[in-house]
């Protein structure tokens, strides 16, 4: 089989999209569960001790931001894959 006759540009686009779709699902679902746990614990803590609400609030927001950055990393990687893949010229040869 002659490999050079295959439509590499189409294969490249198809593979990119096939990777980016499930990848962003996996990368967002896991931090979402973590954020849900954080929000739930914050809610429980505030309902037990409403007077500590301000302090708990800022800690919860902080941890949510930390967890959100994981999802953001996945988003950045997938955006690079779809829009500005550095491997494009390597595989397709300009």
């Amino acid at each position: 089989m002659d490999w050079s006759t295959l439509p590499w540009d189409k294969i490249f686009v198809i593979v990119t999209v096939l990777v980016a779709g499930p990848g962003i699902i996996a990368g967002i679902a896991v931090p979402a569960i973590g954020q849900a746990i954080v929000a739930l614990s914050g809610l429980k803590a505030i309902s037990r001790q409403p007077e500590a609400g301000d302090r708990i609030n800022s800690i919860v927001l902080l941890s949510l931001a930390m967890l959100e950055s994981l999802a953001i990393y996945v988003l950045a990687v997938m955006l690079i894959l779809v829009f500005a893949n550095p491997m494009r010229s390597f595989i397709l040869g300009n």
Partner: protein
Amino acid sequence: MKKINKKTLTLGLVIIAVIAMAVISFEIRSRIGFEPTPVSEEIAPQTVFTVGTVEVTTTVVNTWIMIVVLGFASYWLGKSFKVRPNMLQNAIEWLKEAIEGIISQNIDWQNTALFFPLIATLAIFIGVANLLGLLPGLRSPTPDINTPLAMALIVFVSVPYFGIKTRGLGRYLKHYVEPIFLMLPIEVASEIARTFSLSFRLFGNIMGEEIIIAILFLISPFILPVPMMLFSIFTGVLQAYIFTLLACVYIGGAVKAHQS
């Protein structure tokens, strides 16, 4: 016959106006054969002019516009303050007190005035920069990676600055090796990693928002982007708040008070 509620009437009028604008825009598009630009070009900053080998992009121009407007607005507002506040002055004072509250909660140091200029500048700059894209003709500077990276580098430099200023050089350097000296590489790595995480969080959030708005704009202008743009106000302000909070926490970790 029932009397129509005034709110319902207004809501109906707004919906009718939006649908009419959408229909008109579709008509105009089909008449002139408008080809939407690709999303990647809509998001990426374009070069306006070049000075030598330096390319001045739309990001920089929009930042200049923002700086000029904010500077003149602060000068004018500072002159117009009175003993009895009006509505605008109340809002500004609320903002100042909110930022002071963030500082005093997270930085354990007696006077907040030491940190206030930096933190307030970061908060106002990022908040306005995130909301700038809502104005027609302007683009927000934050979806370009250079602006959040510059902000994060400012925080990265200011952490040792405030640490040395408040605790002295020796005691600041000592906190790197506080329990045992094995903590040194971990501390240094975490300082570098959190700078990147700070910039990528801001960049990714605003960038994702802009891309969603651009994609919805391709599908259907005037109807679908509006709720997303309203939501982007919330996201922009929330990201500015989180950036400010994290900057305060990082600086507070370096200052960490005088154990009396």
